[in-house]
């Protein structure tokens, strides 16, 4: 049982590090995409501050979107993988 507990704690810490890395990366990619979209659509740059506003609006949409919620899979997929391994190694 101690082994399982260790696995839970270590696994949680490792997965949290991965989650944070992926979250930062995903946000950064989204921001870059928004900036490029704006530059392509509005070649003259629009009014002052309109680029920032466009990007911020896009980021706001991202924060509430499905893609961001899917990041939770970082925790769920390894848990499923573990369950599958336990099943196939011990009970199959």
């Amino acid at each position, binding site marked *: 049982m101690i082994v399982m507990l*260790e696995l839970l704690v270590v696994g949680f810490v490792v997965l949290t590090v991965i989650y944070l890395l992926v979250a930062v*990366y995903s946000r*950064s990619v989204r921001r870059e995409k928004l900036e490029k979209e704006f530059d392509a659509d509005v070649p003259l740059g629009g009014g002052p501050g309109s680029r920032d506003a466009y990007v911020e609006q896009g980021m706001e949409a991202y924060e509430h979107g499905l893609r961001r919620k899917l990041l939770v899979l970082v925790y769920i997929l390894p848990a499923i993988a573990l369950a599958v391994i336990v099943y196939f*190694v*011990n009970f199959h």
Partner: protein
Amino acid sequence: MRKVKWTFWTLVILIVGLFLNYNLPQHDVVRITDTYNRQTPLGTINSYFYASQDAGTAPSSIRDVRFIDAVFPSGKVIVYRNEDTGFWPPYLKFDSSNLQAQANNVKSTTGDPQWVMVTHYGWRITIESIYPNAVKITPVAGPDVTIIPWVNIIILVLMAVGLFMLRRMWLQFWERMVDPAVASAEEAGDRARGFFGRLFGRKG
């Protein structure tokens, strides 16, 4: 400097390669000849190559380790140990008693061979009494079956994808965070040079 870099990467590849070779599952088609357990006090070196005692039993420096003797079709012999792995390497194997019972059940003789596929990880190093750990025993039709190592394929592909993503993340971080910071620092440097240039009457 080039030599240092070269040595470094060779070492990294070597260590990662050995690590994977030790931990990834391998498949042997063998005939099991005997199963037994033997009291095994572990030495300082080979203790690293033994897994944990059975999940649920108390720790001890001497313990019975289950072994499985087997023969390859070529006549070469191999001895596996059969221990719970716990979570490292991550086989999460808790059923070594059951596996031993299963191995007992498929014992066979030269005259009437019953071939099985033993999935195992680890190395056999005789001089340090190090044995590979059997994880699974599956009966097979004969000694010539083709085995496709799906698990290895999946793990290696996932690792490659992970490495690729890590590189992408690193490049993204560099492009979005470090480069702009360096650029603005250089800009500031240019302005500063201009200021000092004016101050000391030099042309920057």
